[in-house]
């Protein structure tokens, strides 16, 4: 019997646009982009120049602070552009993909016969390492530190998020192999979090891990919430985290002896037409997915990821590194809501609080979903209301006080209040419910990056 953990605080946002569980097709991308922005805090250095030929698995970038940490090309092809922004900041490396992908072969690897160190250097060399993240700071795991424990997220609770069951069950063998390799990376424990609704045999019967079962109330699917409720991170400790769907990619590579960065992604959102699951390569342009597959005639917001933590992209945007989901919602900037703050908002306005009747409406019709757009629905203010964040923050942390100390960048206070345990995504619901419309995830991300600079 797995350990049961019940999360009481949280919110499942009733948003329209869920993807049915069936594969619709494959997204062909002629160009692939590698964006250092996907890895907060990374100072990327180039390993290629325009005109170079690369294979899938050829290093394209490396980390300035750790030259053993590579970022590889997901496809074979030719480097056609290296785009830079302000202050010559590297924005992306664009690769024109070949018709048929050719991959660097590193030889099949059976994790049971390898040591932890061997697995680590294999993952670093093949560009698979960045799938492993760490707390504190919510960055790519520092391979030079040994983690206290490793936490695997085996379910997702974010709005419209893809079913981890569905993705893992397509390749259970890859998941098992990936897990076998991961377990060797630590002398501590490996925890696998699943939800009470998890059915996948591969997840439920996973070996050499401690399984913890959560109720699927968002943000229970966030690894930070899981860690805080299983064994919290204290100052000075490091834990590594990975999602089960990323473990599948690692396992797949070990089984085949070459990397294959194809993901099974969910295409969701109220403005997506053929919703469902697609296969797509990480970094691949999504132009062909969006082409005649979105609602016409209004401004749209394309998101790689979910509506809470995803990255805003455009109709030629790419699938970002950690995302298994693409969402399309209305932008909403063409709407003019006349004295909207005073209207009853019976049918079209959702609030987690009670100042709009959406909660009451849900009592009568619990399956009612709302069509959200990207508007802030109010002006930015100082923090006025209290106990808003707390209601959606199921960690033993005082969120408002932590946010305030992070704004003030009072390091001692941030440490005392638990900054090492959190990631921006843990504050996504706080940001959603916030009456004052503050950019809390941005505040936390900037605080974490600044803190890492001070501490390391």
């Amino acid at each position, binding site marked *: 019997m797995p350990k049961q953990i019940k999360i009481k605080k949280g919110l499942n946002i009733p*948003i329209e646009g869920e993807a049915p569980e069936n594969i619709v097709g494959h997204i062909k991308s002629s160009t692939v982009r590698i964006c250092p922005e996907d890895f907060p805090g990374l100072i990327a250095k180039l390993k290629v120049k325009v005109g170079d030929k690369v294979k899938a698995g050829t290093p394209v970038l490396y980390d300035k602070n750790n030259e053993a940490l590579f970022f590889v090309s997901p496809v074979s092809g030719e480097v056609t552009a290296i785009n830079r922004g302000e202050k010559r900041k590297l924005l992306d490396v664009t690769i024109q993909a070949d018709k048929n992908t050719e991959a660097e072969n590193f030889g099949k690897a059976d994790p049971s016969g390898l040591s932890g160190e061997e697995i680590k250097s294999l993952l670093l060399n093949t560009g698979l390492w960045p799938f492993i993240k760490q707390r504190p700071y919510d960055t790519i795991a520092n391979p030079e530190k040994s983690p206290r424990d490793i936490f695997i997220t085996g379910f997702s609770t974010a*709005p419209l998020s893809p079913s981890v069951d569905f993705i893992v069950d397509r390749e259970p063998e890859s998941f098992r192999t990936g897990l076998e390799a991961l377990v060797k990376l630590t002398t501590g424990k490996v925890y696998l979090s699943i939800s009470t609704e998890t059915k996948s045999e591969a997840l439920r019967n996973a070996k050499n891990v401690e399984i913890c079962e959560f109720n699927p109330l968002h943000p229970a699917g966030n690894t930070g919430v899981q860690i805080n409720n299983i064994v*919290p991170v*204290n100052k*000075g400790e490091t834990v590594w985290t990975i999602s089960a769907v990323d473990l599948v990619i690692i396992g797949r590579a070990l089984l085949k002896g070459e990397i294959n960065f194809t993901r099974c992604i969910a295409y969701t959102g109220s403005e997506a037409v053929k919703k469902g699951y697609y296969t797509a390569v990480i970094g691949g342009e999504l132009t062909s997915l969006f082409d005649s597959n979105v609602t016409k005639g209004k401004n749209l*917001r394309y*998101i790689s990821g979910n*509506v*809470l*933590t995803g990255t805003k992209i455009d109709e030629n945007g790419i699938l970002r590194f950690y995302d298994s989901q693409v*969402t399309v*919602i209305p*932008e*909403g*900037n*063409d709407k*003019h*809501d*006349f004295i*909207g*703050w*005073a209207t009853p*908002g019976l049918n079209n*306005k*959702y*609030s987690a*609080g*009670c*100042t*709009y009747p959406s909660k009451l409406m849900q009592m009568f019709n619990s399956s009612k979903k709302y069509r*959200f*757009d*990207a*508007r*802030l*629905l*109010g*002006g*930015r*203010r*100082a*923090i*006025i*209301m209290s106990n808003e964040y*707390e209601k959606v923050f199921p960690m*033993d942390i*005082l969120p408002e*006080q932590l946010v305030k100390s992070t704004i003030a960048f009072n390091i001692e206070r941030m440490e*005392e*209040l638990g900054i090492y345990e959190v990631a921006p995504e843990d504050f*996504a619901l706080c940001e*959603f*419910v*916030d*009456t004052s*419309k503050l*950019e*809390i*995830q*941005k505040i936390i991300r900037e605080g974490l990056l600044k803190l890492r600079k001070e501490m390391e």
Partner: protein
Amino acid sequence: MKSLKNQLDKNIKPHFEKGGKLEKLHALYDAVDTFLFVPNSTSKSGVHIHDARDSKRTMSIVILALIPALLFGMYNVGYQHYLSIGATPVFWESFVFGLLAILPVIIVSYAVGLGIEIVIAQVKGHEVQEGFLVTGILIPMIVPVDTPLWMIALATAFAVVFAKEVFGGTGYNVFNVALVTRAFLFFAYPSKMSGDQVWVRSGNSFGFGDATVVDGVAQTVDAYSGATPLGQIESATGNSVVFHDTMGNPLSLWDMFVGLIPGSVGETSTLAILIGALILITLGVASWKTIFSVFAGGMLTALLLNTLSVIPAMSISPLQHVLLGGFAFGTVFMATDPVTSARTEKGKWIYGFLIGVLTILIRVFNPGFPEGMMLAILFMNAFAPVIDYFIVEQNIKKRLKRASK
């Protein structure tokens, strides 16, 4: 409505933008525009969708909750007036008299407060914030009906500038702005804020409801005394206080609950205030924890004093205490101000309880300040951060303990 928005954007907005003729009134235009239309700016970072509630919504709920007490207050002002001049109060006449008496106060309070807010928003280049929408309606409700308008204007200006804007505006203030207004009036013009002359208007409102005037003084009936029940404590003799209305008839608990008694405009009817409390609590705008604990603190203290009962004021029962004066009004609408109250959930219990305790202690032991509520809340406003500090320390200690295990 789209055409109205288009008209505004095309023909009017440019004048208020940088380089336009009315550039200096940009903050005013912006306030009107966002009042009329929910701004359609979309998220730039972080979450892509947002909850529908914003601070305008929250503030308008508070105003909605204040309406029953405000309407009752208007009626009561007229009712007390007609009683005092010896006429039989008629419902509509009383209401219209009260309306005419209070409307100017509301207008002055809003005009002065919002005027200052708009100027400051323009200078600082930010949006006009909604905080004053609530403050502006609270001020007329916590002062005696006969407070001169210039005093209201002066006190409001003082409070908005020195209690709010110098700290950074809505959300940054330490003290409740409306209460600072009242405190300013109370200490600057005590003769207009206490005693038995100020609570009932015996003169007319814009020529409406004239009394018999002799030598320029409106005549009241013989038995009349305009002291509020709490004001009667000081003059009480014997072992107990018997409260009576303006005509000298004793007041029952029911009379105090309904609130046809003299007092500040909005505070007299506990019934109307409880309707407001119900709105605030069910819609989740005010903390029931604060409200509950103020009542608990006040009633327990009163009960304790009852058992000791050395001076007459100590014999006032817990129910009388919470039904009289500004106790209920302060509890529901001012102690719950999220900005100046304790912000942690545990802190709210302590914060509320101490307000209740202090209010009763001030009322009983310092008859010079019959209204203890105002001072108790302002005092606890100052201590709310200390309460929060200890609650936060608790969380920190727990975390440290966990780490050293």
